[in-house]
């Protein structure tokens, strides 16, 4: 067994994704580079990967969010940008997490819509979503109605 010496110790890495018709990852990158100040920024097909000291990364993320708050999403990443252990080129295919991200990207438009609506509306005035833990049985009167509807 070989000893492992970590690199980028004490740094954080964040994904900044953009889900918008108006802003492209390139726009985001252009703004990112302007304010980067020694922080590593890598452009990808869906947004940016930013690595550096936590305060610095948070400052840039906060600035970037301002561009389009309802369409920019941020998430932590375990590995620094371009790490060979997670790189598609080295693995032959995407790491499994990528497919999960792909799935959530398909949900983002609904979340963006929710954020837009809630910019103008108080969350208290929105009814709660269905409780996923409750599986209500079909109400007996509703069932009767359905049967009657079929028979008539």
């Amino acid at each position, binding site marked *: 067994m070989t000893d*492992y010496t970590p690199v980028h110790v*004490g740094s954080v890495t964040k994904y900044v994704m953009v889900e918008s018709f108006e802003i492209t990852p390139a726009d985001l990158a252009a703004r990112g580079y302007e304010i980067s100040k020694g922080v590593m920024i890598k452009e990808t097909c869906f947004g940016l990967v930013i690595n550096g000291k936590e305060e610095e990364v948070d400052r840039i993320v906060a600035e970037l969010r301002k561009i389009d708050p309802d369409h920019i999403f941020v998430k932590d990443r*375990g*590995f620094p940008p371009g790490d060979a*252990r997670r790189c598609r080129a080295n693995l032959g295919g995407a790491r499994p997490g990528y497919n999960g991200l792909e799935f959530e990207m398909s949900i983002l438009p*609904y979340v963006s819509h*929710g*954020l837009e609506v809630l910019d103008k509306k108080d969350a208290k005035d*929105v009814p709660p979503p269905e409780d996923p833990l409750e599986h209500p049985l079909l109400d007996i009167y509703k069932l009767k109605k359905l049967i009657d509807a079929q028979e008539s």
Partner: protein
Amino acid sequence: MVKVFIYPATSLILSDMVARFGHTPLSSATAIRERIQTAGLESPPLQITPEEPKKGLKWAAVEVPAGVRGRMSLYGPMIEACEAAIIINDADLAFGCMGCARTNELIKFLVHQKDIPRLELNYPKNEEDGVKFVAAIKRFLTGLGGAK
């Protein structure tokens, strides 16, 4: 700021929402970051060594597969540390760190065992769901207090 465990722990949406509304998301990425930034023995790609499944024995017995115990060595400490949790229940396509259904069942069970504020949801399927989804999360996170 409250430490909020998110499920799926790899979720971009939940990670974003928790941070956006002023709290700290506890996610797979932070656990993996800790592994790869800690010196030890070389064990690519995730720097999870055969020692991790042994640490996982704290949450799952030895007859439980190594992959479950290794994953629990990442999630067990986070579940212990969390002060609130948001769970998306129909997360059937979260791979990798969330790729094992047996681990996922155990994670949810352990979160349910804790006496902490918890929000359970499904993924939104349309724009109307999206509004309810974001509103529920916002209400939950605001209600925790101490947001940054």
